[in-house]
């Protein structure tokens, strides 16, 4: 029989959905109607994040991260999440600290001793990939293909502890890694502009906004600003996400706080340092109590941060070029 040699198989458990099953989900649940999807964080997370979900987010707690949604997930005490931690920093730490997370696919598991100890103690299970391989997996998920070929991870222990498979390429005869498609259950994404239907625009580097949204069953976006649909139609090249990828739109000014959002506000370095200095569960629970559990919603959280601080952060965001 004609065959291709399998050279190596990574040993990780993978979150994997047959592309046909994903397609059928998309057919049945992703609405092609332009309907008003505006809701607050509470409703969006209640409706679209379930215990046990595989959760992806785009960009980081430094920049344009979906922090108000992360806090709401914690506030609703979601459990047993499997988190896709690619190019992310404190989100995964906070979610783990709050006991929401069982498993983490690691691109970059930043940072601080707190999360490291959770892994060392076996409180969360990690699978090692890389930012590139997780991105490729999302690309495959978005393209509706069962896997994608790649030339990274090869030769490393990262590959052994990932879920990639290495085969001999039938065209080039070169060992080639196959990355299984990744179709998260839910993605949360913060953007600068969206309309009430979910058309969305990201300014600045786009990381994997589009691929993540396309590949995910449920998509919640939060937006600094809600704009009219005509804004997208006037400049269609700037549309990052078409509405039919999106299930919920949350209007969340300062939604990326304590990180920054380009064209709106800079990150709050002091709050950020407070977060990175959390070293034990005591400090973590104290932080969560003060900034998440004890506040009812994002608006109350912002009130606690205070307008003076927010005004300072807006003041620092003087560079608008490229973000309008």
């Amino acid at each position: 029989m004609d065959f291709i040699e399998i050279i190596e198989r990574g040993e990780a458990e993978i979150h994997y959905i047959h592309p046909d099953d994903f397609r059928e989900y998309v057919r049945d649940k992703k609405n092609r109607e332009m309907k008003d999807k505006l809701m607050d964080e509470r409703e969006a997370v209640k409706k679209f994040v379930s215990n046990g979900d595989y959760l992806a987010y785009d960009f980081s707690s430094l920049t344009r991260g979906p922090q108000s949604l992360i806090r709401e997930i914690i506030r609703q005490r979601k459990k047993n999440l499997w988190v896709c931690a690619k190019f992310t920093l404190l989100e995964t730490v906070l979610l783990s600290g709050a006991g929401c997370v069982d498993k983490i696919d690691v691109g970059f598991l930043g940072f601080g001793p707190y999360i490291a100890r959770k892994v060392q103690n076996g409180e969360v299970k990690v699978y090692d990939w890389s930012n590139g391989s997780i991105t490729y997996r999302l690309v495959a998920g978005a393209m509706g293909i069962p896997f994608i070929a790649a030339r990274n991870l090869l030769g490393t222990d990262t590959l052994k502890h990932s879920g990639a498979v290495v085969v001999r390429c039938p065209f080039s005869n070169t060992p080639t890694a196959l990355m299984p498609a990744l179709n998260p259950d839910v993605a949360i994404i913060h953007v600068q502009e969206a309309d009430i239907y979910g058309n969305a625009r990201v300014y600045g580097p786009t990381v994997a906004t589009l691929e993540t949204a396309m590949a995910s069953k449920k998509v919640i976006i939060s937006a600094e600003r809600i704009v009219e649909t005509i804004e997208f139609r006037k400049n269609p090249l700037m549309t990052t996400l078409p509405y039919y990828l999106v299930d919920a739109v949350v209007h969340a000014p300062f939604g990326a706080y304590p990180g920054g959002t380009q064209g709106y506000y800079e990150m709050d370095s002091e709050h950020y340092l407070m977060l990175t200095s959390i070293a034990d569960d005591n400090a973590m629970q104290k932080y969560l109590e003060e900034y998440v559990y004890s506040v009812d919603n994002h608006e109350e959280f912002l009130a606690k941060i205070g307008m003076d601080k927010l005004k300072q952060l807006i003041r620092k965001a003087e560079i608008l070029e490229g973000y309008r």
Partner: protein
Amino acid sequence: MGVEFTDTEFMICNAARLLEDYKTIFVGWGIPQVVAILAEKLYTPNIVQVFEFGSVGHQSRTPFLRGTMGGPTNTYRAIQWCSMNLAFSYAAAGYIDYGVLGAAQIDRYGNINSTMIGDDYNKPKVRFPGSGGGNEVASFCWKTIFVMAHEKRRFVERCDFITSPGHKMDGKTREEVGLARNSGPYRLITSKAMFDFDEETKELRLIGVLKGLTIEEVIDDMGFEPLVADDVVELEPPTQEELKLLREDIDPYGLIISKGAKFKVEI
């Protein structure tokens, strides 16, 4: 007369001096960013930075703000903002000349560990952030430069975990495992020395030591004995010009450059 500087300043300056103008460079978070900015200001004004999250050819503003790698100052006036997939694709297709990466451990073939310390993957003694984009940088870029504090425990015969590939992994060459031909580790810059990789054997080879140190002192602080070049050069400490730029313009808050032990070298 003497010059005082930190480990990190030494590594940054030596890495910046290594770069070529009119080349593309894949820049990681933190130290590599400062290397690129210093190089751009002093040595290679036309170097083209690439960030993994999707920024090409930006002209980072100073002062450098550690926290906002994706933010407006660090990605200022890029030639292209794009996706992570595209940034890595540029590298995979051969368009990116240099990569600059940090490491927790390195072995004699340039394999690096940024994942965990210990012999049980499921119960690591120490857990690090993992690959990030490091595996892609080390897999795809033509020449990867590593920057690492010079400590005995960091030089190991076999990394506890090979996060990103060097020239030989457990006896197999890059080509044998399917990695791109003629790519891979180019230099290791530590807080005391510089290494390349022997053309034949691909082993780590000492080619420079910080002025004032001996070859023996450098090797004593390593977990294995590297090859030693016939003509090991003296590495100049940071110049006044470099330090002034680093301390007054690029990183005045010392977010990056203040890290590590302090050295003093007579010049």
